[in-house]
């Protein structure tokens, strides 16, 4: 019994020590953002600032239109999640419930797109969107994210667990197919829909490569593009405002995470494994 307790405390010590390492970058980001300038570069490092300073935030806020970046990120993430979940719901239902010609071919085709990420197709996609006049527009940023193979796959798996009798009962009651999807199936697989939506929101919100390719103007920048381009011309001295800018960038997501972390982690575990 003593051995068990010892093991428990040993595990706690190792995990806690590791957690300190994990937290350190976040902690130092905040400390740098609120410390008086001389303390930022002091040696030995000052773990707790002598007083809290708001100058770095004021400067970072004045130098870039953060609200525009927030708005762009929010619009892009919301639309991509909305479309991907809605389209994925109907497509997932069709693949799970119906039998139709070329079904397997279409399904394989959709899954195959998982193997061809935007990193591979970015050049051709850019050329294509340039021809459509979509460069530097919301549609352009959204183009690769209007639908998600991952969403189709997971929703199909979930719909397969819905009893067919339930669908038939709804049909006998005179419900149309679209009605069945929205009124009967969607509520039954809500946990999967929520997990998919959360994961897609996260990846869209933090997406960088494709936006940095397709965005030219400042008014279209999303948060990751904003912070990356904020860092570059800023030089090597003003770490305070730079860290204030990263706080501004990551704060909404970290706060959302802090509030819902159990739920988010469960969602990831659910979607990560099959």
């Amino acid at each position, binding site marked *: 019994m003593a051995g068990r307790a010892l093991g428990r405390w040993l595990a706690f010590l190792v995990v806690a020590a590791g957690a300190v390492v994990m937290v350190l970058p976040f902690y130092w980001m905040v400390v740098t953002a609120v410390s008086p300038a001389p303390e930022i570069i002091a040696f030995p490092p000052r773990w707790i600032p002598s007083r809290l300073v708001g100058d770095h935030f004021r400067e970072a806020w004045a130098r870039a239109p953060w609200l525009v970046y927030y708005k762009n990120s929010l619009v892009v993430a919301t639309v991509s999640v909305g*479309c991907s979940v809605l389209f994925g719901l109907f497509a997932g239902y069709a693949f799970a419930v119906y039998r139709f010609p070329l079904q397997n071919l279409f399904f394989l085709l*959709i899954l195959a797109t998982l193997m061809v990420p935007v990193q591979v*197709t970015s050049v051709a996609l850019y050329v294509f969107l340039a021809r459509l006049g979509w460069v530097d527009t919301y549609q352009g940023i959204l183009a690769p994210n209007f639908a998600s193979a991952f969403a189709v796959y997971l929703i199909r798996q979930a719909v397969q667990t819905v009893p067919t009798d339930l669908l038939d009962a709804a049909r006998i009651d005179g419900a149309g197919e679209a009605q069945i999807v929205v009124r009967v199936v969607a509520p039954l697989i809500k946990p999967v829909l929520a997990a998919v939506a959360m994961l897609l929101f996260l990846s869209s919100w933090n997406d960088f490569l494709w936006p940095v390719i397709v965005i030219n103007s400042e008014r279209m920048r999303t948060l990751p593009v904003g912070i990356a381009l904020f860092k570059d011309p800023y030089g090597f001295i003003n770490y305070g405002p730079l860290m204030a800018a990263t706080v501004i960038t990551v704060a909404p*997501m970290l706060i959302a995470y802090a509030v819902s972390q*159990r739920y988010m982690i469960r969602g990831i575990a659910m979607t990560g494994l099959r």
Partner: protein
Amino acid sequence: MVSAWAPVVRAVVRAYRRHYLHAYLFISPVLVAFGLFRVWPALQTLYFSAFRVELARRRLVYVGVENFAELLHDEIFRQAVTNTLLYAVAIVPTAAALGLILAVLFTERFPARELLKAVYFAPMVTSTVAAAVVWWWLYNPQYGLFNALLRMAHLPPSPWLLSTRTALLSVILFSIWKTVGYNMVIYIAGLQAIPAEFYEAATLDGAGPLQQFWRITLPLLAPVTAFLLIYNGIFAFQVFDQVYVLTGGGPANATNVVVLEIYRQAFQRYRFGYAAAEAVVLFVFILAITILQFRTSRRFEVTY
């Protein structure tokens, strides 16, 4: 004749309307979106790779396999491929092993368990770009926290991102910090799926904790491990954000990776055809890993 066939025709039409029409209607948004923005660009990538794109004259010049021939002798691209491979080989097993160790430690019931779990996962929800900006500051050779800590421990400071010998390792350290929480969460889910009776039976048979880990836990987690190795492997080949922010591929291409090289050729030098050829090579690598997945996941299929 007509009347004899009429019910059959009606039935077929009804079945068609009820199922086929709905099926095609329901999958069409996904097919259209994927067709336009995934499949078509994928085919175009293959097509472009055989051309030299002359933007100024707005024309394509057919060059056959010339782009690929040039790639073979392109020192910078070769280094990008080598770096990407090194990155993948370093990060994939390390992040998996750390994730597994953490997951096993988390099976113990100690205080603040949920909070600590959340801490490990926090980097995962943070944008890679923003987190990399923070690490860029931590890695600063003069004022960065990492060298300050080394000096406090009376260890020699490191140039981190500024030296060709340490830059790639610095990028890898960042990426491990970023992904270990994900692997941990997936392993925790995998551990919970192992029936407790297995351990109870092993304990009755007198197996110690270490023996139980090697004989029960590890083999039963094999499918999870296979999933993580492949999943992380594919992502490792797509690495871009942290390299862009931390080093921009430098110094002297020491951290240049395939996606960054595609980005540079296409969007800084406007060599679309050449970049497309590089993208085809990247696809071949990802395809190879995926095929490996199908092979290994079948072998690791465990039923209990």
